[in-house]
């Protein structure tokens, strides 16, 4: 166990470089380059906020940052589930040549999507600071915890999915559907109170996605600290998934090369 993580650490130059290379190739030869990860969610937010605030009769000033926070975190989640499930298949050239721990190939996605998330969240901080300046305070420090907490959940999830998808190549396709439904039943764009007023408390209270989003939303949108429950639920999810991922990895890591 410990030696496995020390091997991950020993290969750090390699996966950090893979992650940075992914980002470079994503922005290569585009005029706006890095700023695309800020422009894209902002543009989508403007569009959605305009439409939804009319349909749902909500206040656009507070609803827009709600959507923006949903978009950027969801982007991260889908990059690491749908994208992450393919990480072993995409890295087959490396896996067949070098005996690195396989978890570095999902860590590569975690790192690159974390950087994108951090960049994208800059626009969220900026937006909120302008339209809701009264929320600014020490509680904003809590928003920084979302990055390690998200990574602690996404790393085991994408590693698990990568194992399964290498064995069953239908999984990445099916995942698109699963994630779409997960999006629909989670308070990503739709407000939490809409679920609650519909009597769907369980979809909020037992939904890790809600608790993770609260780490960002409670401070920024309400000027409050995230609750202990938010942290316990997020970290508990991370713990359970990590145990499963370690177990599955222990059994199947060495066999992955046969399925590539």
């Amino acid at each position, binding site marked *: 166990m410990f030696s496995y993580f020390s091997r991950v650490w020993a290969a750090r130059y390699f996966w950090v470089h893979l992650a940075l290379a992914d980002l470079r190739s994503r922005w290569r030869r585009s005029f706006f380059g890095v700023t695309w990860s800020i422009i894209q969610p902002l543009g989508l937010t403007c569009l959605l906020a305009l439409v939804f605030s009319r349909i749902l009769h909500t206040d656009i000033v507070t609803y827009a940052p709600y959507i923006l926070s949903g978009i950027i975190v969801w982007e991260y989640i889908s990059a690491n589930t749908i994208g992450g499930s393919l990480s072993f298949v995409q890295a087959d*050239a*490396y896996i067949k040549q070098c005996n690195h721990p396989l978890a570095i190939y999902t860590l590569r996605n975690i790192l690159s999507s974390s950087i994108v998330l951090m960049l994208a969240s800059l626009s969220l901080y900026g937006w909120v600071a302008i339209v809701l300046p009264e929320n600014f305070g020490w509680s904003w420090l809590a928003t920084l915890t979302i990055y390690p907490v998200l990574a602690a959940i996404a790393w085991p999830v994408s590693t698990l999915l990568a194992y399964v998808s290498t064995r069953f190549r239908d999984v990445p396709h099916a995942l698109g559907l699963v994630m779409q439904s997960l999006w629909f039943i989670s308070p990503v764009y739709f407000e939490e109170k809409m679920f609650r007023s519909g009597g769907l408390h369980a979809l909020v209270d037992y939904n890790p996605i809600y608790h993770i989003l609260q780490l960002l939303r409670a401070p920024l949108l309400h000027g409050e600290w995230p609750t202990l429950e938010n942290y316990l639920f997020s970290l508990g999810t991370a713990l359970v998934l990590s145990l499963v991922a370690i177990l599955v990895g222990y059994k199947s890591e060495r066999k992955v090369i046969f399925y590539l």
Partner: protein
Amino acid sequence: MKKNRILLENVNLHYAAMAYRERSLKSLMASAFKKSARNGQIADIHALKNVNVEINSGERVGLLGHNGAGKSTFLKTVAGLYPVSSGVLQVSGQVRSLFDLSLGFEPDATGRENILYRGLLLGLSPKFMRQKEEEIVSFAGLGEFIDYPIKTYSAGMQVRLAFAISTTVGGDILLLDEVIGAGDANFMEKARSRITSLIEQAEILVLASHDFNALKSICTRGLVFHHGVIVYDGTIEDAIVEYKIVNGPAQ
């Protein structure tokens, strides 16, 4: 004082035949519902059978055998890529392997960037690779192409670059799989002398090849593989004779 050694005791290796049959959920479900009409399931491919080898510091070992005899599998097992099904595998020392040279290039990145990436892939630090960069560039001899993306390279140029990178960083245990024979005649000469010096630096060399002259000039000990079994282990000259006997006069 560390001692470099490769030790295999009763090593068996099976390729999971499952990997080549059930690729999709559909076929898995189909086979679950279908009564196992065909009892003759495809058996796992038994790629290495009861292999017992000990290779010590200073040995130069050549692997002989027909295609599919288990030479590459043996090398990849020693490199730690394939899991052994049973038996003991002990490898002490830093392993460097040259298998498929053109694997793992980033087509959109330039040659220079790829030098760094490949070095990192081999587990080296960026600092070390930057020191070695000029040496690699001059050995590869690609001129201004080194600053062009890899996708503009011809196959031969890719091999030259890969070869230059892989052979600049040495190791205690060197595993080579049919790599002698890359590039044009001019480069071949350079490559041959480079390989020779690399071999001299390495503590242990294991080379799989069909080139008897290369084997004779480089190796001292020969292992003959036949259908996953080591049928001969002795001097390289005798191994070549044995290989010809095992595989019939047509060779």
